[in-house]
């Protein structure tokens, strides 16, 4: 767990970057710090591994005050990923990943073996290890950055806009990878971004900062979206925050019934029972079946695209289990929204 207690940061030029911050970042959870530029979110992150020293107040990582520890040793015990990856251009990918183990005094063979293991963990081919950073794409470099941060298996991971410089498709891939990794590794992650969608997607808790280093609200994403503390938060989350909330709710609890028979449109299945397409007398339209784990937002989208307003639901194997109507999805979305609002209030 990371605890901020009445932390102030004022830079020598007189600007206050962080103002009276008290905040707890729970163990094994992803806390996302979000806000526009100059709001102090990066400074907050960098105070955790003493890249920036607080002017006053205390910061504890797992109960120990960071300023009472040797800065270099503290940093070796905390994973750190930055924008543009910051890889060492003169070292191979493998040696980049082995940085912290080598600093901790592991022998080279063991450090390289660990690095090779991590290449696989972050989804890179083994032969990437022998290459130099400039020979990799931006997304691959960022994966190496994550692998380097994980090398000594630190309990805490700091990520400073790590996916800010890659294109949207790669960004989504990297976010998925991070969520998958986090399921496996269960680190305490502090993640800085200015992208609300990224925050909603990754965060177990989201802390919203306002210019001048004020923390405005810190809550799980659903609570935040359903009950923003003030107009600033509401504006920051955007007009379509209701839809963003739906991206957090799953389809699991929406009732389903049997597929309709004999109407204008019928759902055509293959012999194994998997939906193929919608068919009428003279047309065929594609169907995108959803599972229980898909979001209400995806369901709403599919119900609008479907010619019957019905969403085909399948199990993990892709076999049809039933259909849900546009109305059921709509009603459920409304209920989910008010439930989140009650929790927030």
């Amino acid at each position, binding site marked *: 767990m990371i605890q901020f207690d009445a932390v102030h940061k004022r830079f020598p030029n007189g600007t206050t970057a962080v103002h009276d911050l008290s905040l707890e970042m729970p163990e094994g959870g992803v806390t996302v710090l979000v806000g526009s530029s100059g709001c102090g979110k990066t400074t907050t992150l960098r105070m955790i591994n003493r890249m920036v020293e607080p002017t006053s107040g205390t910061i504890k990582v797992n109960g120990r005050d960071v300023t009472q520890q040797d800065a*270099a040793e503290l*940093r070796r015990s905390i994973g*750190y990923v930055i924008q543009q990856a910051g890889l060492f251009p003169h070292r191979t990918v493998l040696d980049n990943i082995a940085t912290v183990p080598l600093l901790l005094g592991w022998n080279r063979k063991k450090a390289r073996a660990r690095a090779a293991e991590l290449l696989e963990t972050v989804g890179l081919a083994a032969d990437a290890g022998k290459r130099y950073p400039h020979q990799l794409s931006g*997304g691959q470099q960022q994966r190496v950055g994550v692998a380097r941060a994980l090398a000594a298996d630190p309990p805490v991971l700091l990520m400073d806009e790590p996916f800010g410089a890659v294109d949207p498709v790669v960004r989504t891939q990297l976010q998925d990878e991070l969520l998958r990794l986090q399921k496996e590794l269960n680190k305490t992650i502090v993640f800085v971004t200015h992208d609300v969608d990224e925050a909603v997607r990754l965060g177990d808790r989201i802390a919203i900062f306002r210019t001048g280093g004020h923390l405005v609200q810190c809550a799980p994403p659903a609570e935040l979206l359903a009950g923003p503390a003030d107009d600033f938060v509401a504006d920051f989350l955007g007009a379509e925050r209701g839809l963003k909330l739906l991206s957090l709710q799953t389809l699991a609890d929406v009732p389903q019934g049997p597929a309709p028979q004999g109407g204008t449109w019928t759902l055509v299945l293959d012999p194994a029972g998997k939906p193929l397409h919608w068919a009428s007398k003279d047309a065929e339209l594609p169907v995108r079946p959803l599972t229980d784990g898909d979001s209400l937002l995806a369901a709403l989208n599919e119900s609008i695209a479907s010619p019957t307003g019905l969403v085909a639901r399948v199990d993990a194997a892709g076999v049809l289990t039933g259909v849900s109507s546009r109305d059921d999805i709509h009603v459920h979305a409304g209920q989910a929204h008010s439930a989140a609002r009650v929790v927030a209030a």
Partner: protein
Amino acid sequence: MFELFKNLGTWLTSGSQWAGSDGIAHRLGEHLQYSLLATLIAAAIGLPLGLLIGHTGKGAFVAINLASFGRALPTVGLVVLVFLAGGLSMLPVYVALVALAVPAIVTNTYAGMTAVDPDVKDAARGQGMRGHQVLFQVELPLALPLIMTGLRLALIQVVATATIAAYVSFGGLGRYVFDGLAQRDLVQVLGGAVLVAVVAVVLDLLLSTLQRFLFLPHARTDSRGGTPTRTA
């Protein structure tokens, strides 16, 4: 004109001209000794200074102003000055040559250090490297191309200028230039000058080859044979 070059060719290739204590081989040895020693001393002064200024960011004005100081420094004047103050020895020559070489080394080392990507330095500190580890494991290797450029520049300048040793009665290839001038022997003057130029060019080529093959594995083309490029 043709006659001059024919005589120059004879002068440069005759065996007797290469032998003995007044021969080209011996003078070449002296010249190399002056040049290499002066450059080594200059490197011993300039490298730590440039690294320190680059690493700490303090005293940057020293590094910047040294460049113009170096350009403005009258080398012969310095030799005469130290000679008048300290008497006849190789000391004035070395002082002048070192003073000539230090600015090039300091400014290039400093330039190399400041050209290291701040993100990379930040990442190095953030992974838990101490100051000296950031310097020797990250900044120095990345600044090396420019540091080497500084050393090459310094060495060439020193080789060209080491002729002044002969001005205060010592050896080196400058002997031919000054003796030739005194004896109005144009062939000898020209021969000395040509030899100095050849030494400078050869040393520069040697160092640049060394630089390419020893220090920069990451700057070479990749294993697929293509030019390394950054893709999205």
